[in-house]
């Protein structure tokens, strides 16, 4: 679901002049109707967790079940928006609004609340101390009623970002409900900044750069990062394998093999050999031997000698396996 959401979202840049001033209205009180929030079935793994509960739940029964829930709360009764960097291009944000915050907006905006668009406003705040109105630029993303998180394509490596969760009213006014932390996306290529003391000729750096990515001595700087991504060589975690597995050529298959069980019994204190090699008896004098049986003829003399060495018996099964 969330993957679709992030692909689906294409960003619209809205001309700043249409928008009037940015007003930050926050936290007002009461009215009705619940907030849009994640339902339990939206939490990945929830269904599966129920299925495996018996296997992995650890009964902690010193306290009544009801006070130790089995599922995490859907919200923590807080007004909060958090912004994180996924890679040089993409950000991730999630948020939570208290019911009373939403009710406050409803009561102060009246009908306008229901006609307003739900907007994430993404500010480029590179190299500035953001005060709400001095962003280098910004763009808006309209999100749907049920979203509580979003992946944002900034297309802007090496810049700093801040996001407002807000409402776009019919008359074009933007109301900020929550403001995120500021994050910086990394560069997706080498920096243009060099320091004098550690200068290096461009062509030498280009060679070192390519070699650092394992691309050899003559890889061009542009595109080296894309090349590097294609190589893989990423960490593989505890449960997944870095070793290649052969793919099944076809889905249908069959295996057949043979093993031979030789078993018997004698006096518990007797000495027994099979094909000339001594074997151990169980306390009751029985024994069982199990062999992989290749295509062959096997002559299997089983010999028992009594404890006083006065008597012996030999029985010799002969087994042939032939596979066609």
């Amino acid at each position: 679901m969330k993957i679709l959401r992030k692909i689906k979202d294409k960003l619209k840049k809205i001309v700043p002049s249409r928008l009037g001033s940015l007003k930050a209205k926050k936290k007002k009180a009461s009215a009705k109707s619940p907030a849009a929030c994640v339902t339990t079935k939206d939490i990945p793994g929830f269904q599966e967790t129920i299925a495996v509960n018996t296997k992995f739940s650890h009964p902690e029964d010193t306290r009544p079940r009801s006070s130790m829930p089995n599922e995490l709360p859907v919200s923590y009764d807080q007004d909060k928006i958090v912004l994180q960097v996924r890679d040089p291009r993409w950000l991730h944000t999630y948020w939570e609004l208290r019911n009373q915050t939403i009710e406050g907006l409803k009561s102060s905006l009246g009908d306008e609340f229901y006609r307003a668009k739900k907007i994430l406003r993404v500010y480029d705040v590179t190299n500035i101390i953001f005060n709400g109105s001095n962003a280098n630029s910004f763009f808006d993303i309209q999100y749907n009623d049920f979203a509580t998180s979003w992946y944002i394509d900034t297309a802007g490596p090496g810049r700093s970002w801040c996001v407002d969760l807000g409402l776009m009213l019919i008359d074009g006014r933007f109301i900020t409900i929550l403001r995120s932390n500021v994050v910086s996306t990394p560069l997706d290529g080498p920096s243009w900044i060099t320091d004098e003391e550690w200068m290096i000729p461009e062509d030498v750096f280009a060679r070192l750069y390519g070699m650092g990515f394992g691309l050899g001595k003559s890889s061009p700087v542009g595109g080296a990062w894309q090349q590097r991504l294609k190589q893989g060589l990423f960490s593989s975690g505890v449960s997944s394998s870095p070793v290649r597995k052969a793919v099944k050529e076809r889905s249908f298959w069959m295996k057949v093999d043979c093993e031979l069980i030789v078993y018997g019994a004698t006096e518990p204190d007797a000495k027994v050999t099979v094909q000339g090699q001594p074997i151990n008896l169980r306390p009751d004098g029985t024994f069982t031997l199990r062999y992989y049986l290749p295509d062959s003829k096997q002559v299997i003399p089983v010999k028992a000698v009594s404890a006083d060495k006065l008597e012996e018996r030999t029985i010799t099964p002969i087994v042939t396996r032939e596979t066609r």
Partner: protein
Amino acid sequence: MHGHLPFVRHPEHENFLEEDWLYEAITETYVPLISVFEGLVRDNIDFRITMTLSPTLISMLSDQLLQERYLKHINKLIELSEKEMERTKWQEDFRRLAEMYFHKFSYARDTFQKYNNNLVYAFKKFQDLGKLEIITCGATHGFFPLMDVCRESVRAQVKVAADHYESVFGRRPSGIWLPECGFCPGHDEILREAGIRYFFTDSHGLLHGTPRPKYGVFAPVYCKGTGVAAFGRDLESSKQVWSSIEGYPGDYNYREFYRDVGFDLEFDYIKPYIHPDGVRINTGIKYYRITGTGNHKQPYVADWARDRAAEHAGNFMFNRQKQAGYLNELMGKPPIIISPYDAELFGHWWYEGPMWLDFLFRKVACDQKEIRMITPSEYLAENPRNQVITPSFSSWGYKGYSEMWLQGTNDWIYRHLHTASGRMSELTRSYPRAQGLLRRALNQALRELLLAQSSDWAFILGTGTHTSYAVRRTKDHLLRFNRIYEDIKSNSINENWLSDIEYKDNLFPNIDYQVHQ
């Protein structure tokens, strides 16, 4: 080399599948590595290797319950290999391999017992001899870049780890392997506070740093403002070992990982050695070599594999000599080449890996003079003057940043983790000098938070297969944390319940909740 496993310990279950991760790693990776080190010391071969032992791994290796369970596990394997020697009597190729496993497993048990069931002592021994440099990691391998909005938690991950390291090895750690190599500018300040002098980044961490690193990844840099050194990963040497396509481990003479008697043999026979529910699992006895790209596999021939490992070690050394020679000319000074790998690649996934490492150490020490092995501490002592830059945000995870741990299947965890971090800071502020039961509750709250933060859970969720355990662990630790938080706030800590989870999640006995600020 990065040695890490998530904390998996379930005293409440007799058999717990995921505990096998530890047991397999002991038999297949840690004991074989220790055996390589022992051999080198015995033969007076000078060598250097830098290795993470993550705090969770150290905690499990030192845990008595898991030690006892390992002995049970290895004894079962020895029993199985004995049966296998008999069963394969009429199949010479296989019987020899069954004997190989019998000796391997017996050796693992003997080694384990020789170090009083605690392999941490073995690693410590080689560190004390100056051959092995053990570095630390995040306390529970939390992925720091996705904790950047609550740096108190990054600080707790680092401080708990460094203090734990000191209690085990009797000195402060000089370096750290940032979990998943995940670095965010600014976290170097937290490392400095903990007295850590260096860390590692993936190549682009240095190459995309500002200003440009003059020597690429072939010399360390100091972080601007903190002076903590950062070493960058070299991908050329990584590729030779790690690449699933052109890497050494794919050689047709090497052992095939995916054919195990746990899956291949008749059910009733193998049943005592797989999961009690009858779920077939890997036992570690594998009879085939990779053979080719198809499904038809030939029996493994140990001598051939050994020859290949020697050849590959020679090839690796030759390539490093060429690489270093070329770089030396280009840079006008000797380069350092950082080749980090997951420890579990060696032995567990790549059966011949420890043997390859053994050949490599011996060849580098005896066969040439162009290159030598060095630890980061030694390098910094010899080369104290390095460029100052701000390395770039980076990781060695899929696509090089956070995506592996932040995608549709696992992004739901962060609102819970970050809220818990905020609550932990709130508790630390509210109860600065807690004693008695309250202190126990606060310490356990931090343990639960740290355990929930393990990047391993998000990683497994990200792979999308066998996710139920990772979901359960994430939720269990967060639920326990939330309950402790609420109990503390309402002044109603239940000691019985607290004792129960202290017993289950028993790592970091000396933890101090006040590091979370």
